[in-house]
């Protein structure tokens, strides 16, 4: 018997509170269910639980989303340019002005890309530390919505200057970054938020006490 898809199992054990669901899915897998079936069940369980938790705790969800965006905007405002231009300068010796005037953009794209995803990862980590997994998923969903809206907004208006504070947020969804951010940014938020959580499973009560629960 092969082991169940590891990423799917990792994802569900860190996001779904009810140990009964995780155990049932593993038992189903032992009975010979397909990988497709397993993935479908994992994703549906995560979506159903997130929907229920968000619906039951709207204020906490709003707080989680605001926390994430505040962290992102403050980080990018305070040290976005400093880090991105500093790294590009260290690597190439060019300043941003020289790079832009001579159309040598790639080092600046790369450092902007790096700064953006680092910011998304830090915000995901902070939201996960202060809220539940469902709130983290809600924040990740909000990043997808904002980036998708920015693709529509900036994509339909032609060359439009991006507001300075928002540059590192939306840059990953702009054409010169190949719009990778639409999928990668929410994924980075989720992975960065879930990786550091160490699980301490208590078989006696069936609950994972290491995770924050809405009800506690």
């Amino acid at each position, binding site marked *: 018997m092969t082991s169940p898809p590891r990423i799917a*199992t990792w994802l569900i054990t860190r996001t*779904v509170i*009810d*140990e*009964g*669901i*995780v*155990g*049932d*899915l*593993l*038992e*189903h897998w*032992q009975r010979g269910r397909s990988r497709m*079936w397993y993935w*479908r*069940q994992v994703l*549906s*369980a*995560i*979506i*159903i*639980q997130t929907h*229920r938790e968000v619906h039951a705790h709207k204020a906490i969800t709003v707080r989680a989303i605001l926390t994430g965006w505040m962290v992102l905007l403050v980080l990018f405002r305070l040290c976005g340019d400093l880090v991105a231009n500093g790294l590009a300068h260290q690597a190439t010796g060019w300043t941003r002005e020289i790079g832009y005037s001579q159309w040598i953009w790639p080092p600046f794209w790369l450092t902007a890309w790096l700064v953006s995803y680092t910011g998304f990862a830090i915000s995901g980590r902070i939201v996960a530390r202060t809220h539940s997994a469902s709130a983290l998923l809600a924040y990740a969903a909000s990043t997808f919505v904002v980036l998708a809206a920015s693709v529509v907004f900036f994509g339909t208006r032609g060359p439009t200057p991006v507001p300075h504070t928002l540059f590192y947020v939306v840059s990953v969804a702009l054409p010169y970054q190949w719009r990778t951010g639409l999928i990668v940014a929410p994924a980075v938020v989720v992975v960065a938020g879930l990786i550091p959580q160490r699980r301490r*499973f208590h*078989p006696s*009560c*069936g609950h994972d006490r290491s995770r924050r629960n809405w009800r506690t």
Partner: protein
Amino acid sequence: MIASALGPDSRRSSSLVATPGASLSIAVRSIFAYIEQMRKRDYLGQFELMVLLAVIQVGEGAYGIPIADFIEKTTEREVAVGSIYAALERLEDKALVTSTLGDPTPERGGRAKKYFRATAKGVREAREAQRTLTRLWRALPEFEGGKA
């Protein structure tokens, strides 16, 4: 109607208000409380009823897998394990089922089984739902050519 639905406390608080702003605030809160109360008294949804009947049918040892198997066999459709647990959680909130944890087993990755059992209230609700649905079906005209 709203005051009677909310009980004596709401009537007492309504009689104490003096300013129009406060009475408006109480009226808004009363409406939301009434809506919430109506929502809580909601009838069993179709899927909730299916899950409740599955719990009753499976009897002792009803946990996620036998419940899912029963529903899949009866409906001939795949069901999401997550949706079964969501329905069970709602049923538990309404005190129609209770749950207990079993021992962790290796094939479940060390996770315990969560056993469900219908309460007396749950069995009553299921019977009531059956009676209501039967009455509704009887009220329908005969089906002819697949149309009512």
